[in-house]
């Protein structure tokens, strides 16, 4: 599914009690990104990127400079350990940003994509809530 098609479908889609807003960050000749907001939580948007094989959905959680320096290692280890139990999503780091992400096959249906988005959005909020103890006050 193309990103603009996904955007149109999301506008009228509701699943698992959640609704979606989305807009395309057009990036001429480079990589298009679809910004998706689940249930109005625009603080933790999900950025959807399409490659030839997969749809990558990323939500940025916090910057490394927000982490208490003395707890950085402990946090990294905790995130690695939580990667497997957390459903459908995994933790990642992109440049200085910690993120949570999920990847789907490009052939995924709208139901699969929205399920991923809703799960990712929930995971992102829960993850952020769980790691606040590691963040600067």
């Amino acid at each position, binding site marked *: 599914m193309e990103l603009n098609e996904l955007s149109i479908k999301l506008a009228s889609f509701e699943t698992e009690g959640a609704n979606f807003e989305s807009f395309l*960050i057009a*990036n001429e000749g*480079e*990589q*298009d*990104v679809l*910004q998706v907001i689940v249930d*109005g*939580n*625009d*603080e*933790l948007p999900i*950025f959807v*990127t*399409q*490659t*030839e*094989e*997969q749809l*990558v959905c*990323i939500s*940025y*959680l*916090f*910057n490394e400079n*927000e982490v208490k320096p003395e707890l950085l290692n402990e946090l990294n280890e905790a995130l690695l350990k939580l990667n497997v139990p957390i459903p459908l999503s995994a933790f990642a780091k*992109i*440049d*200085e*940003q910690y993120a949570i992400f999920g990847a789907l096959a490009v052939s995924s249906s709208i139901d699969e994509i929205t399920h991923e988005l809703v799960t990712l959005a929930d995971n992102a*909020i829960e993850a*952020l*809530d769980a790691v*606040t103890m590691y*963040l*600067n*006050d």
Partner: protein
Amino acid sequence: MSILKKLFTAVRGGAREVGESIVDANGIRIFEQEIADAKNALAKAKKSLTEVMAKEMQTKRKLASLEDSIIEHENYAGEALEKGNEALAVEIAEKISEFEDERAEHQQVLDGFSKHVILLKQQIKEAEKSIKENQRQLTMVKTTDSVQKATMAVNSTLNTNESSMVNARQSLERIKQRQQDRQDQLAAAKELEAAASGADLKAKMAEAGIGSTPKSNDILERIKAKQNK
């Protein structure tokens, strides 16, 4: 070196500037070229394979017909001997010898074709493996590249929108506040609905014993009062 190892090296130590490309466009082109080359080789090998297999079959047919001819002529030679025609038998034997030479030649050709088929099948397997492997690595390279470009696009949008530049703690507070607001709204709506339907007030009055006496009781009292008059 595998792509994953290269990526590890690029990521390690943070020698890279933020936004600086982990994979150069050249790397992607090289992979794409390698895949294209392998696909070409694969197509060629498959075409050769069908050709060689066709020739192999032709040669096998030829060998079978030679075999038939030899048996046939052996029978003829036998018949000639039975009829005491030794001269003809010798002539037939010479013909058989020709057939046998031809058979040996074709057998050699067939062996050559059979070896070629094995070789081509091996090449096809290798080309297919190489395509699959290169495609897997290309996916890694391309995903790294897309995610990086996407991040840059996202960053440039966020940077132009100051209000989004809040830290994670603030974000979480806001989300929790929103979730709480929603719950409050839901509870308030329920309360409102209960009040509108009057259920709330009636319930309160009933509890206080007001207005809840059944009408039939009143009527009965009234009738009794009339009878007593």
